[in-house]
């Protein structure tokens, strides 16, 4: 990994024919990456499909409770296709997915996809805000720590980073709530009314990732600042700010982007707990409520959507990295 971010991007834009050549050269990587993503997607749908079969005993009995009539049970069993062989059930499940049919919620009787649409939007909003907090806080802290390497500021940042990485969402959330909602009254204690309601959940979600980014960007910057081209830039008498922001940070970006992509899964997972803490009406809250209601089709759909979103982002990150650093794609 250390070798991955020492390449200097050209100062001028490449001519168009070079871009076309680079695209062709990177094509095998693109197709290979997409093919492996496709295999993962198939595996993910299978695992999510299997979830329903992990219900101890008879899933229909568990979902409907003991007072359901025999007719209700038979109807649900048929609707879920549980009377058919496993392979046929899976094919039906995938076929439904391809048609955009994620099943029907047992609790509300509405199509799952309708329930999901609104929640997905709220989770995406929260995740983006959390990502903003993470980058906005983590990147400057990490860069400044690298510049102050070995001094008090660096040590303080490191200590803060370990604390930030370690504090679980369900501890940080109530803490922030206590200080900023109960004592200071700056933000609402929960819910999703207006932009101010987003602040505390976004902070709760973003701080652990901010800590990871701070550590990562500190390490990456320290590596890059030792490179000969940084020395050369300084020797040419460039302003220190320009050396750091243009020459060093650009080359340190690759490992940071990779980390961001990989950590997005943790961010989406953290959203489940954060949403529960603040009553933020996203996919996470929907999963937890549906589990308590034994509304398993909704649970399956939420898990599937979150996992697919994660696969998509990771694939895009890989491709982005290949574009940032052509050597990854074997282009030269």
């Amino acid at each position, binding site marked *: 990994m250390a070798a991955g971010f020492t390449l200097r991007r050209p100062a001028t834009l490449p001519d168009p024919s070079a871009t076309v050549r680079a695209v062709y050269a990177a094509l095998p990587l693109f197709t290979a990456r997409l093919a492996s993503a496709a295999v993962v997607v198939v595996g993910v749908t299978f695992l999510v499909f299997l979830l329903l079969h992990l219900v101890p005993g008879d899933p229909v009995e568990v979902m409907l409770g003991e007072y359901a009539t025999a007719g209700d049970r038979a109807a649900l069993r048929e609707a879920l296709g549980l009377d058919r062989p496993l392979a046929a059930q899976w094919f039906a499940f995938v076929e439904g997915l391809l048609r955009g049919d994620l099943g029907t919620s047992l609790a509300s009787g509405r199509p799952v996809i309708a329930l999901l649409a609104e929640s997905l939007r709220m989770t995406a909003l929260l995740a983006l805000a959390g990502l903003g907090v993470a980058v906005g806080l983590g990147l400057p802290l990490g860069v400044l720590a690298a510049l102050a390497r070995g001094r008090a500021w660096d040590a303080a940042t490191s200590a803060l980073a370990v604390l930030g990485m370690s504090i679980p969402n369900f501890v940080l959330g109530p803490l922030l709530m*206590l200080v900023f909602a109960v004592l200071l009254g700056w933000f609402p204690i929960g819910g999703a009314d207006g932009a101010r309601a987003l602040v505390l959940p976004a902070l709760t979600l973003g701080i652990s990732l901010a800590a990871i980014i701070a550590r990562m960007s500190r390490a990456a910057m320290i590596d890059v600042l030792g490179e000969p081209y940084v020395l050369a830039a300084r020797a040419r008498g460039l302003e220190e700010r320009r050396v750091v922001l243009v020459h060093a940070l650009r080359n340190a970006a690759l490992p940071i982007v990779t980390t961001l992509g990989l950590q997005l899964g943790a961010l989406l997972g953290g959203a489940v707990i954060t949403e529960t803490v603040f009553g933020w009406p996203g996919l996470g809250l929907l999963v937890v409520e549906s589990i308590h209601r034994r509304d398993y089709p909704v649970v399956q759909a939420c898990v599937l959507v979150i*996992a697919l979103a994660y696969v998509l982002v990771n694939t895009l990150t890989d491709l982005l990295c290949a574009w940032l650093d052509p050597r990854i794609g074997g282009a030269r």
Partner: protein
Amino acid sequence: MSGGTRGALLVVTLWGLAALAAPWLEAEANRIALERILAPPSWSAPMGRDDLGRPLLARVLVGARLSLGVTLVVVALAAAVGTLIGVLAGWYGGLLDLLVVRVIDVFLAFPGILLAIALAGILGPGIDNLVIALSVVGWVGFARLARAQTLSLRTRDHVQVAQALGTPLPRLLRLHVLPLLSGPLVVEATFALAAVIVAEAGLSFLGLGVQPPTPSWGALIRDGTRYLLIAPHVVLMPGLALLSLVVAINLLGDRLRDHLGGRPR
């Protein structure tokens, strides 16, 4: 050993001792005192009392036993299964390796805590299901690490010599591969301890883990959030307990990684 490392070791040791002492505190932890509901910290109850007047200190100490117990079992299971799968995949390569890599990729496509939540939720409450849900998520990290390490160790001279001498495979892996794997695996296991403690508490926080009246840190925090407005100590005390242990373990993990090598973070 630096001051920070010593402090971290001390914190972990203290929580370990608390977990061992927990059986003697169980009666105290469940002693209801309705005339002292939600009392703030005092001499008789240094962490204050909960919504049934039970002393939080005793409940947090008993909770440590459950948290640490579940975590140790999960990490041991995940490390054993994950390492075995990873070493075999890395050693044999071929179709087995391809299959294992694909399965690992599929598991990595789920945010770990989400898969654990779905599994624990669907399997139902209880310690057994909690351990299963967390282990199913946990083995992947060990398998990936063990596979990658074994792949590079396989071509080392001493391994090839042992192979040429006709050393039986179990003996060869045990004597010549596993010892070289152990450094990174110990580092991985240390970080896994911290992650599983948080994940277990998270599941209990969501009501998917251990059921009342057994005190667990996550459940204590969940119960505490209901009284955030009037008695913040009920959520603060178990929260700080959890945080102190996780910070200490992560610090130790950092130090171990500096010495033994392992995954970059």
